[in-house]
């Protein structure tokens, strides 16, 4: 039996749903999702539009003036929770799951996390909808520029606090550089340490960025450039010179996006995500070449990933991270309620948009397959099955695993003592835990 339609759905997509037929031509189905406009992402339930930066900042100001009573979530946090619900509901019901997987991939590449505080949470709807999603099949440089200028990122990595020490404001106040964002853009978002940059490069990049910050207390409620905070003089980053002024930041980002080390780094990460924990060098070279030849066209890279021979063979090589696993269970059950998904993600150590560190979540099995986390998966499989115990287990099995189901799994599901136990076994099976 042809396994390619199922693999397209589990490896490139976010897993099949019962009412959505598998694609007859998997490659065409995947290609189409990389060429069409991003599928619409509805606003949170009960809202006409997603929360704007201004609305988020107003709620933040109101919170600071009058904090909510103990035990009650603040309005900015409630707005962030609503956005989480909107995204998970979309993940569960979307018919463009390859685009969604790519979005999740790039959100992890450009990690911002709730633990960064209201600066992150109030800016996150903008970050998701305007900085990341429009570019996941566009050009990397546009995503790098958008993410690096997004207020959520500027708060999360402390750029909002950075001041040129020799700027007017710096001299007056004694405040100075904060190099956090500069370092992480180099290390995690663009060239990676393989480019061999030095501490001096980090400091120079931080100087280049000075002046860029966020005005959250008054219009424009957005990214701003404050000339009085900008470090005077020309700067040098990775051997390139940048003149003083607001244009240097974007110019530096564009040079970083075009750097060969960036293409190599991104290719390795993409191949790791779609092919194997240890990326095969020929596959990395292929994707790196596509990125180089197309000036970082992520749509072309996605289509090239789909055409890598190593991306299609069973056995399934990748262990599903909790986000993949939990969404796959709920999609297989035909669920639409985001609440249990968000709870399960926290329980399994991958709370949505709240990675512990700026390098995001692991994308290898070793990051998730330790003994107790695997046991917690089994517990979550049982809980999830309990919510859907009225479904026909054979149907859940066909949807979730189709031709990838092993004979052992079919037999065990058939022998289970209850529908809940049977669905638990589908969800716990090794073929369900992989993609």
């Amino acid at each position, binding site marked *: 039996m042809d396994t390619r339609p199922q693999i397209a759905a589990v490896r490139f997509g976010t897993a099949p749903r019962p009412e959505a037929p598998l694609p007859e031509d998997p490659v065409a189905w995947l290609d189409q999702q990389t060429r069409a406009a991003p599928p619409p992402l509805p606003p949170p339930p009960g809202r006409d539009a997603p929360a704007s930066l201004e609305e988020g900042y107003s709620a933040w100001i109101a919170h600071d003036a009058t904090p909510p009573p103990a035990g009650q979530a603040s309005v900015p946090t409630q707005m962030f929770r609503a956005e989480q619900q909107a995204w998970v509901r979309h993940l569960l019901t979307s018919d463009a799951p390859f685009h969604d997987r790519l979005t999740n991939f790039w959100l992890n590449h450009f990690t911002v996390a709730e633990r960064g505080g209201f600066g992150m949470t109030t800016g996150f709807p903008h970050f998701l909808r305007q900085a990341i999603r429009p570019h996941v099949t566009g050009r990397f440089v546009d995503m790098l520029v958008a993410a690096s200028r997004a207020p959520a990122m500027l708060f999360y990595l402390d750029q909002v606090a950075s001041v040129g020490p020799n700027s007017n404001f710096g001299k007056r106040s004694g405040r100075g550089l904060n190099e956090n964002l500069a370092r992480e853009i180099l290390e995690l978002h663009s060239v990676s340490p393989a480019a061999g940059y030095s501490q001096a490069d980090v400091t120079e990049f931080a100087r280049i960025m000075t002046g860029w910050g966020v005005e959250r207390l008054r219009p424009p409620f957005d990214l701003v450039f404050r000339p009085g905070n900008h470090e005077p003089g020309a700067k040098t980053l990775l051997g390139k010179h940048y003149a003083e002024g607001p244009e240097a930041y974007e110019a530096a980002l564009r040079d970083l996006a075009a750097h060969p080390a960036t293409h190599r780094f991104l290719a390795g990460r993409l191949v790791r995500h779609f092919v194997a924990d240890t990326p095969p060098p020929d596959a990395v070279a292929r994707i790196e070449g596509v990125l180089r030849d197309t000036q970082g066209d992520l749509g072309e890279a996605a289509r090239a990933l789909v055409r890598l021979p190593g991306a299609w063979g069973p056995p399934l090589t990748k262990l599903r991270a909790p986000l993949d696993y939990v969404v796959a269970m709920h999609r297989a059950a035909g669920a639409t309620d985001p609440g249990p998904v968000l709870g399960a993600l926290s329980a399994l150590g991958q709370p949505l948009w709240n990675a512990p560190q700026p390098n995001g979540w692991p994308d290898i099995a070793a990051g998730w397959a330790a*003994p107790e986390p695997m046991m917690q998966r089994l*517990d979550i499989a049982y809980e999830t099955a309990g919510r859907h115990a009225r479904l026909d287990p054979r149907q859940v099995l066909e949807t979730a695993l189709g031709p990838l189901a092993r004979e052992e799994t079919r037999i065990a599901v058939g022998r289970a003592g209850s529908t809940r136990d049977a669905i638990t076994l589908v969800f716990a099976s090794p073929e369900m835990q992989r993609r």
Partner: protein
Amino acid sequence: MSQTHLPRIGRRGVLLGLTALAAAGPARLAVADVAAPAAQIMDRRLVVILLRGAMDGLHAVVPYGDPDYATLRGALALAEPGAEGGVLDLGGSFGLHPKLTELHALYARGELLPVHAVAGPYRTRSHFDGQDLMEGGGEQRLESGWLNRALTHIPESAGQPARTGLALGLDLPLLMRGEAPVGMWAPPRATRPEPDLYARMADLLHADPVIGPSVTEGMRGRGYATGALSAGAPIPGNQGGFTRLAHAAGRMLARVDGPRVAALELGGWDTHAGQAQRIDPVLVQLDRGIAALRVQLGEAWSRTAVLAITEFGRTARANGNLGTDHGTGGAAFLAGGAVQGGRVLANWPGLKRDALFENRDLQPTRDLRGLAKALLRDHLRLPENAVDAAFPGSAAVAPEGGLLRA
């Protein structure tokens, strides 16, 4: 096959203590206590706490006696002992951050040894490279952790109920990854499947090269932990995550048949801005966590050493946002009844401009590996080849003498 098919794992599951998952009473434990061999009672205990995000050593262990300290730190400088908000004195030159009251009480008992101007052998300022190198223990990145490699040299007996090593929380840190199987514990969920269903799931997963061994190990670990933790008062659930994990760790390490080595993690140290506020709750967690270990370890605390380490220190000067950026030399803590504490271990390089590393960071004068090697050799009494395997290429770094009580 019949309808009463018993999953293959069934017999093995029972042997591994799977039935304990259903809930075990104290009665069962009493048997386990009696059965523990007397020789194990003398076993030492080692706890390693990874402080992720780079703890500012100059803010945790304050060199208030250094003539350049107050000027260099500016608004981040803490007051001298006795002043309002002042540090807790450590014998005249150094002081603990005022939130570290439990640690200060340990110091007074001679059970806390703050170590200063210490760093790993690497000089990266990347968190992620630094953490991997700190945990790997080599001069390049390694796929296993130094503590796991050390564990491979501690023989486990066939009937031993708990693994020698225990990791707390849902993340198995690189420090504990490797060939030696380790136990894990994380707070349980409200409901769990019946043992029979676990056995059926384990049966399906048994052959998977990644998931199978983890589930087998996970069942074994849960079987032990469920019993071990059911004795005594419930683990407090309303405390911060780290304190709760430390509580559970102490409870299991205290048992004669329990693990001997545990690893915990505590994040939140990456204080680039507003450090004075951001660091307080993290210091409190560390303080309470180590206190929970001591209380729960009880009599075994006298044979325990706790090592708390971070990937690197932070810039010696405040960064203009009342925070600090990634640096080099920093502080570490050794605590425990087995530790020769009540003093500060430091070859203090001073904070003069010329003394700083790259005119920026506290100059390291001591290698973290010397501390860890001493604990492996002198505390766990591991042979030389085990210590070498834990820290390859570290022949030039001698195990630090005098860390432990005679």
